[in-house]
């Protein structure tokens, strides 16, 4: 556990200052076609300081964490802030103070380190299970990974915190070949917030999803190319989360809004169907801890939910303290840094479209000629609201029934146009917490949503 070498400096802060000690610990085991190509541990930690003066920040970080190093990093950050203030001369006042100063202690108790042996044994067991059960694979990869983040944050005003968040995940990649020898792949991430052995104890706990993955891969072997163009699509809940994150979430991050994203001129306007409500949850969803809860952000702001779209109306953006002042709103805790040497940026937390009242079966049955899009890979957003994400698995829908699987393709649209076409929303909800969001730094985020019926551009032939 991190020792507190920070608090003693608080009384000496002259400008707005954030002082953060942090360590990120990862363990990874990769079995590629049965070969252990990765057996790695890493621990990256240190201390950073950020100082605000006159409208610009100075930041410094170092790997050494000791009483002396904290002092020298604080001095370096202050000197950087002084240099910027002397050169840029924005002349802005200090950031408005935050109300409710307090200290928030660990939201998750620190647990004993998970052993690498646990990951190795599980990965081997899972690989054996896959080889024995799924006979028509040409290859498979199993990745077992843990990421634990511990932070100690002291701020000149706001909420000090000691934070610990563990994330454990297993990825399964399956590959098969089509009749003419073309490889096709599918991936299933299994991810939890918590210690590795809270879930990953026996591969049979994953059997149902692995069976489905294999069945769908066999479907995909016989897949056809999608017919390119604007189509009626049912997005499985797996895709609604990435839609919330990529298509809308990034455009309503305040730094992108200030740069001129499409959301800049749409506040309090209809940007989606009245069925759509979208929230960036801070730490609680439906009365339970959100998938990746954030209680205090890296600027010392107590985190609250950020309402983004309500009944189709764009209601707000996500902020850091500086942008909240610009827009004259209350910051809600979206300033987040991934590593000890990263500065906080405006980031999403648990971003979701809320469920509706329809049944997924009814959504599918309502489509005469379209696509049921089930699994996505990567996705990207744009300042215009134009988004793209890959579709690794989808099916044709003909006369309300699921038809042939389709080969990998891409779907795209303009978020605020496409969301207006949503006319049915399912009553279920799927959260996804694997992987990372990229924006100068990587970041752990959660995204969720129900199934949607909408119009989408689909790539193909």
């Amino acid at each position, binding site marked *: 556990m991190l020792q507190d070498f920070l608090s003693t400096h608080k009384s000496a802060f002259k400008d707005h200052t954030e002082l953060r000690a942090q360590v990120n610990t990862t363990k990874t085991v990769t079995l590629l076609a049965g070969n252990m190509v990765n057996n790695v541990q890493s621990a990256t930690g240190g201390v950073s300081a950020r100082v605000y003066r006159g409208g610009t920040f100075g930041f410094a970080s170092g790997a050494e964490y000791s009483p002396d190093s904290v002092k020298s990093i604080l001095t370096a950050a202050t000197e950087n802030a002084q240099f910027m203030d002397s050169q840029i001369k924005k002349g802005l006042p200090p950031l408005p103070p935050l109300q409710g100063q307090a200290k928030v202690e660990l939201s998750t108790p620190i647990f004993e380190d998970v052993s690498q042996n646990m990951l190795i044994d599980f990965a081997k067991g899972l690989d054996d299970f896959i080889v024995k059960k799924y006979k028509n694979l040409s290859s498979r990869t199993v990745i077992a990974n843990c990421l634990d983040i511990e932070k100690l944050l002291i701020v000149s005003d706001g909420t000090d915190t000691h934070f610990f968040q563990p994330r454990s995940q297993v990825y399964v990649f399956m590959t098969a070949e089509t009749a003419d020898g073309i490889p096709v792949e599918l991936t299933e991430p299994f991810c939890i917030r918590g210690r590795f052995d809270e879930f990953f104890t026996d591969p049979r706990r994953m059997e149902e999803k692995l069976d489905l993955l294999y069945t769908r891969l066999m479907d995909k072997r016989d897949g056809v190319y999608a017919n390119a163009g604007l189509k009626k699509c049912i997005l499985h809940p797996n895709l609604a989360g990435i839609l919330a994150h990529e298509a809308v979430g990034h455009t309503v991050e305040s730094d992108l809004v200030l740069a001129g*994203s499409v959301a800049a001129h749409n506040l309090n306007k209809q940007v989606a169907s009245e069925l759509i409500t979208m929230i960036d949850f801070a730490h609680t969803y439906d009365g339970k801890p959100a998938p990746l809860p954030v209680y205090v952000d890296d600027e010392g702001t107590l985190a609250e939910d950020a309402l983004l779209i309500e009944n189709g109306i764009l209601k707000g953006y996500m902020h850091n303290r500086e942008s909240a002042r610009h827009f004259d709103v209350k910051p809600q805790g979206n300033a987040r840094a991934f590593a000890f040497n990263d500065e906080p940026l405006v980031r999403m937390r648990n971003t979701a479209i809320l469920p509706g009242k329809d049944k997924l079966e009814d959504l599918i049955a309502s489509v005469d000629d379209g696509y049921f899009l089930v699994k996505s890979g990567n996705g990207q957003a744009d300042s215009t609201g134009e988004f793209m994400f890959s579709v690794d698995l989808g099916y044709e829908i003909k006369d309300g029934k699921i038809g042939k699987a389709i080969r990998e393709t891409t779907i795209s649209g303009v978020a605020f146009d496409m969301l207006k076409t949503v006319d049915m929303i399912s009553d279920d909800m799927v959260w996804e917490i694997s992987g990372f969001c990229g924006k100068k730094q990587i970041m752990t985020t959660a995204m969720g949503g129900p199934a949607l019926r909408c119009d989408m551009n689909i790539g193909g032939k």
Partner: protein
Amino acid sequence: MNDIANYALEALKKAGADKAAVCANKDRKDEFNVQENKFTLLRTQFNDQLTLKALVGGRKGVTVINKHDKTSVDEAVADCIALAKLGMTDEAEDIAPMEHNQKFDQTIGGYDMDGLFNRTKEYVEQVNNEFPKIMLESVTSEFTTEKWQYVNSNGAAFSNEEEYYSFSNMFMGKDGEKTTSFNHYGGPLADLKTAFMDFGLQRQLLAESVKSLDTRTIEGKFVGKIIVAPTCEDMIWHTLLHYFLGEQVLIEGTSRWKDALETLVANPMLTMRSIPLNPAIIAGERITEDGFLSRDNDFIKDGILKSFALGLYGANKTGKPRAANTAHYNLEVAGGDTSFEAMIKSVDRGILINRFSGAEPGTSGDVSGIAKNSFLIENGKITDALQETMISFNITDVIKNISGISQERICDGQSILPWCCFDGVTVSGK
């Protein structure tokens, strides 16, 4: 640095490593940040890293820490040996042999902080003056100084000291409520002699973003030619390197080119290499990730597959030859015999693609995505900027269907690439 690396190596051997390799790094990075055309941050990072690899009975362990003190190094050594003992025996695991030990010097005379600040400020002012309809979503300018020492138990010992500037920016056209797609550009620099505005394609890309404030949507779809700009290197070249030539797909046996060495895989006008030793490449790789001296490497020459992108482990595992470097991002594609202007004139209906936002294609080679910051070509002329335009193709087909490679090439300090024209691509709009 030498002391830390050698100390860790000896400790690994004493702790039971049959073979071991150590790399110790120390760097400092100073970085100016601009957002929305205004300076926001000066950041200084002091970073250390120590990477340990041990083989015990053919089993591998790797530990990475960012501390250099003796206590932390001792703990990391113990962890690394413990990891190796837990691993699986694999005869393909090895370390590089001793070659010609060397010290590399890629320094450029130290940090000119005022110079970097002034170049950054000048760039923002030039954008404001020359391109008032451009919004700089972010600009980052950096100076990095790094030292590393690599040693292994076969006697290999290399050290490097390097310094470089770098510049990157993300920008978009903005006029009232009209906004374009963002675009980005940048790269490493050996000095500050050139204004950032004059770096590679920077000015041209800014001008094209302004032109993209008014866009057009293609109705329906057609099969035609696309001209891919040097800024789109991920779309074709990195896809080939990862999904056809890379270690993972060759070990799995899923690469469609696994048996294609020395055969014709592309149009004979295509030659593609990785060139970390080329003087135009800034702070290029000097040793590979597994400890060999880096050399330039041909992947495809005159359309014939000459090499995979395999490291030592992948080469041992597959029985195929190891590539001469691991700097696959330092790419060079040979120029062709067509001028860019003539290439445009050769296209009756197609698009010029400056940025591609697409899916990870996978080993099938099917690629689809959105043509960003792109323009319609009609009757041999660049006409309108496009929006909501998707393209799809199979990469193994289109690299056989290259219809032209430009004489002009762009060097951004990391790669040297021309414009390439590919035929047989499905282009679809609304």
